[in-house]
């Protein structure tokens, strides 16, 4: 019984998170749709959390190996996703001259 209650609470978390996601994403600037995609890529690589447990727990070797490959894949997404998002966002400027002046 406790188990099934937990399923319902997970489902409601999912539904609520989807609505929050829809609300937040809808307001994202159109200019930034490409960086948005690489950012959400990195965020959904939160799968890293599951991979770490499968890789690091006291499970049989082959299972941990699958976990390690998953961990590698998620980590790649996290690193490249955040780095490239930041790289792209740095390029969005209102005025080149003002920006250069601000830096010096």
């Amino acid at each position, binding site marked *: 019984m406790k188990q099934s209650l937990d399923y319902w609470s997970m489902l409601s978390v999912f539904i609520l998170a989807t609505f929050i996601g829809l609300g937040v994403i809808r307001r994202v600037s159109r200019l930034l749709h490409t960086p948005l995609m690489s950012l959400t890529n990195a965020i959904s690589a939160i*799968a890293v959390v599951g*991979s770490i447990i499968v890789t690091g727990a006291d499970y049989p070797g082959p299972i941990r190996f699958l976990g390690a490959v998953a961990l590698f894949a998620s980590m790649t997404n996290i690193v490249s996703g955040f780095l490239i998002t930041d790289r792209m966002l740095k390029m969005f400027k209102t005025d080149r001259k003002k920006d250069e002046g601000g830096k010096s």
Partner: protein
Amino acid sequence: MIQGIVQFSYIVATALFVFSLHWMNAPQTARRGVFAGVAAMLVAVGATWAQPEVVHHGWIVVAIAAGFLVGVPLSRVPLTAVPQRTALSHAFGGLAAGLVGTAKYYLWLGEGQENLTPFRMIAIIIEIILGYLTFTGSLMAAGKLQEVKWIPQRPVTYPLQNVTNIALLGIAVVIGTALVIQPAAPWSPMLFPAIIALALLFGVLLIIPIGGADMPTVIAILNSYAGLSAVAMGFVLDNKLLITAGALDGSSGLILAVIMCKAMNRSFANVLFGAFGQVQPAKAIGEEKLYKAETIEGAAQILEQASLVVIIPGYGMAVAQAQHKVRELYDQLRKRGVTVKFAIHPVAGRMPGHMNVLLAEADIPYTELVTMEEINPDMPQCDVALVVGANDVVNPAARHDKSSPIYGMPIIDADKARTVFAIKRSKRPGFAGIDNELYFADKTWMLFGDAKHVIGELVKQLTPGSGMH
């Protein structure tokens, strides 16, 4: 105690992820969003790693190091290659979900079959189907975008294609249902790989019929799948952080896909199951139309005398890497007091927002990048519309030609400008294989050649002290 800290960290991470996306609503705050995302990820990884059930650390360190080794170079690709990189990272996301689902199933099968409840089994089946189909589907999409030789660029179609695809998916669902009912029967461990194989195959077959013009939508849909597979992983692992972060990604992909579909006046089903450009070849033959070509000198003179120039970039600009030359042209025209705006169609390029990133890379202020809805009312006042490698998004046939495959698609009204210059590599029709009426209009003049070269020449003409007299 440690569980309390872990759960609390997950809540902090969830909140930071929401803020991260919230800050993407304006370019001024967007970079803060990245920092919030990184912070959330560090908190989540740290808390998970600190859990007592994690007892082996060697492989974790190796996998994380390998992730850095591959991830850093992947983040340095040229911006024209961003669509491929994005597709590739969807593939990685799908793979991770698929592998964790597989690992968990065999783990529970071996020790603790009571864990394979129907609910968990449903979640595992959804996780592996979505995960593995996203994996191969995204790899195919990345291959098409990278123009890998052995992956056909043009849509590949064959008789009963959709029937085959749906039948495959149907078989996977039937096997999945059997596994939900009997997760630990003697035949179950054998059927499980069958689902994996079907999902992998389905991913390939789903992308084969899709052409370049549909890539923005398809990438967005794959983005959504990658998020949903993370959600399914969250259900399998009882982890609410995975569910929320996955749902954020899933809804982001969904919204982008809806925007792309609206911008093409097509439905999801139509993008996924109705290979584009199939009706066309019969029509392409027929009356022969004439292009009017203009010289660089003539075009430069007209540009110079304009007061409002609207530049409409498309995928051709990315291919020719012409964005920096476009910036030089923008500078020269601005020096002469010409107002220059960039009109960005939502599906211009190969992924959502592709053109904005390329123009921002070339140092063009984002305040000059205007959406289709904003620019269209001004188009009749526009002296020159300069089309740089865009095609279908400026084709007036979308407005009136019911037989055209792009009929009903909202377009940038380039044809309402007083003069239109279109830069085009060759006289062949565009990616979708559709003739563009705009090129044959009375006020349209073609500038044939590579976009980078043509714009470079225009800049030379406009640069004081050379060419012009």
